[in-house]
């Protein structure tokens, strides 16, 4: 890990969250660099969602600290929220609005000037083959298009850091690949991307991953290095070996 702390997008120190007697996240230490695609893996209930909610400033840690996009997550959570984008697996879009209306709605939420939001959206959507002027309601779009529209809405305010929570659940295998091409381009442009997924072949596309179990990081590193260390051919085998 290079010691140039200015290029770090996320740094956590013993980040911990307890709910009553239950420890959801247990002394998590992570350093994630600008431009990284970083994957959070783990069984259901391993602490991924709790960790990510803290990193987004939605949940205060019980102990430990984290600095995300130069904001302290405990004391600067409001400022933090203006610097991050978040896309959930449920694609929080309004189904009975058109594509353009969804874009305008989110530009309002993120307080982005209309003309700027539309030009950002136009660029991102045309690249994906979606017409911003279409009269069609969002509900009638194929799932892969909805997914890209949801991604676009989360990028309108030009966040430095993007959180994707199971972004490809349910979309067809071709759309899943096209989506990862977009993610790669975003990372090349300097965005940091944090992604959770249950598709282990997608874990291979991440620059680095953390595997969580019972709130702890049980493995952290580049997929190729981790596979090598544990002598397994792919991430699926690695996951089964470490988590079973």
């Amino acid at each position, binding site marked *: 890990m290079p010691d140039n702390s200015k290029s770090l997008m996320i740094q956590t120190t013993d980040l911990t969250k307890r709910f009553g007697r239950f420890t959801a996240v247990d002394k998590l230490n992570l350093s994630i660099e600008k431009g990284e695609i970083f994957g959070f893996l783990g069984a259901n209930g391993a602490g991924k969602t709790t960790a990510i909610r803290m990193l987004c400033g939605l949940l205060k840690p019980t102990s430990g600290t984290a600095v995300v996009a130069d904001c302290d997550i405990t004391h600067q959570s409001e400022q933090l929220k203006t610097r991050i984008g978040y896309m959930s697996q449920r694609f929080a879009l309004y189904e009975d609005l058109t594509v353009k209306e969804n874009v305008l709605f989110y530009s309002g939420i993120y307080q982005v000037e209309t003309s700027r939001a539309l030009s950002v959206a136009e660029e991102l959507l045309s690249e994906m083959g979606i017409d911003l002027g279409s009269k*069609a309601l969002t509900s009638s779009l194929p799932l892969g298009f909805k997914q890209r529209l949801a991604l676009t809405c989360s990028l309108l305010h030009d966040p430095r850091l993007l959180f994707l929570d199971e972004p490809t659940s349910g979309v067809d*295998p071709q759309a899943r690949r096209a989506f990862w091409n977009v993610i790669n381009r975003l990372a090349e442009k300097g965005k940091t991307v944090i992604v959770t997924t249950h598709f*282990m*072949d997608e874990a*291979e596309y991440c620059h680095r991953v953390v595997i969580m179990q019972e709130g702890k990081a049980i493995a952290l590193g580049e997929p190729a290095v981790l596979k090598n260390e544990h002598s397994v051919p792919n991430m*699926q085998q690695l996951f089964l070996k470490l988590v079973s």
Partner: protein
Amino acid sequence: MQDIIQVRDIMHQYGDKTALEKISLQVSQGEIHGLIGPDSAGKTTLMRILCGLLNIQSGTVSVFDLDVSKKFKEIRSRLGYMPQRFSLYQDLSVEENLLFFARLFSVTVQERNQRLPELYAFSRLEQFKSRRAGALSGGMKQKLALSCALVHRPELLILDEPTYGVDPVSRQEFWQMLKSIQKGGTSILVSTPYMDEAELCDRVTLIYNGKVLASDTPTKIKANWNKVVFRVTSPEMKELEPELVKIIEIESCQRFGNELHLVLQADEAASIINQLETRFDEYMPMLEQIQPGMEDIYLSYMQAVQHKEPSHAG
């Protein structure tokens, strides 16, 4: 083998949107049959029709040799259905949910007292029996929903994406449970968006945009597909991939984790591979023929369907 489900030429429309386009398939007695496809392929619509929850618009459907449009009540008492969304009462405990479903299906008290310990042993949920269903983890919720669908000892189980959003370890455990249900004599129709689960089924139906792409045993689907797959790895993957994508003789070049899969016509494969090895020598590619996976085949059939029809406009 006898068919427990027979679907012939089913069409279904929601308004002007076609969900199912002349679908036909059979599920044999005692098999695990996988319905494989992404969201909006038509899986849920088909399952709801089989359970008598949606009217048949055209075509015929029989379950246990009974006509679904006439005998759905009798059919429903003999099948277990696990819908896609968590179907349980979140504010009831694990045990209360099981008792509720037992009463719903008129299971006698005697029968129920015998059945519950069996289901607990099988799902390993006994230690959580007084926990509220809403407080279970994702994998445990799915096990409870499955147990509730099994409480009346159905002859046929219909499971709508039971492993959706479930981590790989819990998915593996869930499939072990399905195998043991099958051994007890129950037939299973299960839908999934995870292509790797196709290999765990006796037979599968690949479905896309309301159409059946293929329906057979995984082995026969692979045998009948007249193409071959080569795996490509290279230290210079980033440079190599865009080059390969441009070559028209390569039917498709898809990323699979940290490797690329090339799909080629079987009779042209040898010469194309030879050319590639020479042409891209500088990238030191490793090219190796592999057994096609279900995802290779699904993508290939799916692209063939897309070429035949105009793509959806946004």
